[in-house]
């Protein structure tokens, strides 16, 4: 330990001799480590945001969509057919033991009018369970009930964006809005959720009973069969996501009377799977950023190697003298290795500081979510030491194996 301390003292003295040169060499490592820390923080910030969004979607959510219909070999593509019904939604809830809640979902873009204001927004026709499944909370007023659905009551729940655009400051509860000239009573407003991962405003929505939505708002067109719906949204019991998906698939195949040879005419997807895919994409992005940044760390390491080679050449005579008075191979090797590692570790520490500042700057100026984690700092510290050892070894070895006679004679 004493020896290491002594080597470090010698190293510091040697580095002080050429302050500017040492500083410039360190700059390479500072930039490298700083860039890695900043990029990793951007990457983990994005991942962290996705985690938050998974939580905001609601957990254990499964979406069932109509599948592709096969009309004599022509496959129409997912979502184009009308194979799901409200009955299916009800059956999923009642007959699948791993399913907690289920709701039909029918959505449509509509123009909404209140007094002299109007706003285009998305209408969601659902059953009351929809709020629980998606973890949407009521801010003011009351949610609608199963009774409202049965009675086709004209009631609506408004997202914050809709409230802001229709009721500038007015209390919306109890007011009447019009959707396609049909009057609806506002019974409640929703707690804001912000943007989702694809940048969509999750507060720009109106929620109403499925029955009312279909009969009063979305009627006509192809939807002559009132039973058909666009989507079923399901919440599985905790930890039973896969069971629920399997049960739903079996149930719907049976209800749709599909033969063993036939493909599903619906599609069952877990939102968590989708989020996981997205998270993976983000992680790959983060990894890409970090690997680009680590190239500069390698360049910094080459800078260290370069300067150490120059230093060994400059100090050939000193090395010869040290060898003459008894320095062994390992003494010279460790002297120059410690010098290189001191350079890279010092650069690494400053680089960590710079990386933290950079990631604060990114989140302040660009508004991105960044997350500097302790492991990434530890890894940066470790890697800068590794860079010092790796790129310092060759020059140090060169110094250690100089011929003492040649070295002493060197001018």
């Amino acid at each position, binding site marked *: 330990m004493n020896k290491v301390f002594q080597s470090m003292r010698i190293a510091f003295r040697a580095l002080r001799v050429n302050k500017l040169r040492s500083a410039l060499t360190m700059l390479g490592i500072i930039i490298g480590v700083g860039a890695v820390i900043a990029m990793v923080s951007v990457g983990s910030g994005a991942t962290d945001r996705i985690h938050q969004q998974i939580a905001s979607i609601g957990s254990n959510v499964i979406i069932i969509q109509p599948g592709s219909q096969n009309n004599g070999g022509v496959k129409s593509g997912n979502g184009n057919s009308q194979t799901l019904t409200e009955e299916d939604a009800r059956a999923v809830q009642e007959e699948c033991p791993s399913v907690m809640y289920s709701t039909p979902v029918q959505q449509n873009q509509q123009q909404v009018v209140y007094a002299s204001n109007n706003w285009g927004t998305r209408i969601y026709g659902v059953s009351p369970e929809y709020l629980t499944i998606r973890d949407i909370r009521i801010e003011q007023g009351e949610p609608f009930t199963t009774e409202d659905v049965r009675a086709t009551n004209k009631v609506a729940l408004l997202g914050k964006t809709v409230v802001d655009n229709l009721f500038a400051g007015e209390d919306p509860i109890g007011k009447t809005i019009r959707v396609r000239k049909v009057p609806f009573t506002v019974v409640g407003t929703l707690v804001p959720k912000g943007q989702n991962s694809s940048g969509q405003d999750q507060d720009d929505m109106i929620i109403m009973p499925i029955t009312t939505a279909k009969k009063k708002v979305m009627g006509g067109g192809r939807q002559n069969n009132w039973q058909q719906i666009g989507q079923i949204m399901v919440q599985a019991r905790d930890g039973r996501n896969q069971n629920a998906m399997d049960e739903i698939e079996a149930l719907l195949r049976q209800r749709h009377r599909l033969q063993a040879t036939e493909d599903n005419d619906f599609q069952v997807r877990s939102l968590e799977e989708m989020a996981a895919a997205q998270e993976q994409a983000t992680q790959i992005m983060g990894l890409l950023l970090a690997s680009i940044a680590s190239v500069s760390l390698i360049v910094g390491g080459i800078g260290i190697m370069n300067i150490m080679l120059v230093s060994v050449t400059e100090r050939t005579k000193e090395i010869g003298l040290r060898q003459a008075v008894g*320095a062994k191979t390992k003494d010279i090797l460790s002297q120059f290795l410690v010098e290189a590692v001191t350079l890279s570790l010092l650069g690494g520490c400053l680089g960590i500081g710079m990386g933290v500042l950079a990631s604060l700057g990114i989140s302040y100026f660009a508004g991105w979510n960044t997350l500097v984690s302790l492991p990434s700092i530890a890894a940066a510290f470790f890697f800068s030491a590794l860079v010092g050892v790796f790129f310092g070894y060759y020059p140090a070895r060169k110094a250690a194996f100089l011929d003492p006679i040649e070295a002493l004679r060197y001018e």
Partner: protein
Amino acid sequence: MASDALIRIDHLHKTYHMGDNHVHALRGISLEIARGGLVAIMGASGSGKSTLMNIIGCLDKPSSGKYFLDGVDIGSLQRDELADIRNRKVGFVFQQFNLLARTSALENVELPLLYSDGDKSKFKDRAMAALTAVGLAERYDHHPSQLSGGQQQRVAIARSLINDPQLILADEPTGALDSRTSVEIMGIFQRLNREKGITVVLVTHEPDIAHYSNRILQFKDGHLMVDEVVTNPRNAERELAEMPDIVEEEEEPVA
């Protein structure tokens, strides 16, 4: 083997290979140097005297023949074993002093201790004792650039003394010094040789300087030509005392 021989060299050859050229630097040298000897080696450049010094100093190994230092067969040792021998048994003094710049006299003297297994808490005291032995104790914190050539060479001698070596090898130790300072340095060597019994081998091409020793070896073309005993060696301390006092030694520091 004579028990009082510190250095025993037996049919020593050294050949350098440079591509297809073979340079015979030493062509069969045999000699012994007794403990407590003060020997000067002379010869023109290319005579093989530097090669011999390198081998005696354990910086190089013979191509053939034997070299025993203090009874140890140097030719059989590995790189790090040689370094260890140099550290413990040999002190080096060079023409250009070879002090570390930006390092105090005291730390320069301590340098060989870094590579020995000594008690670290005594390093400073030992280095101070060595500086005192060469009369530079009061300048222990000066850097080489603040010292004159003679003072730098005295620091170098203190460094060579630090591990109580049996042998001091001096390669043209007065080559970069004026004549008065040269006499002072030779006085130090004579005193160390006389009082501590340290064997001193020095290379010089000045016959004046060689006559401070009690034996002169002359080399030519890789052969030992002359091996003569100096019957009446010069005494540096007496000569210094007889010299007129020129405003006590404030030399210009050499760059």
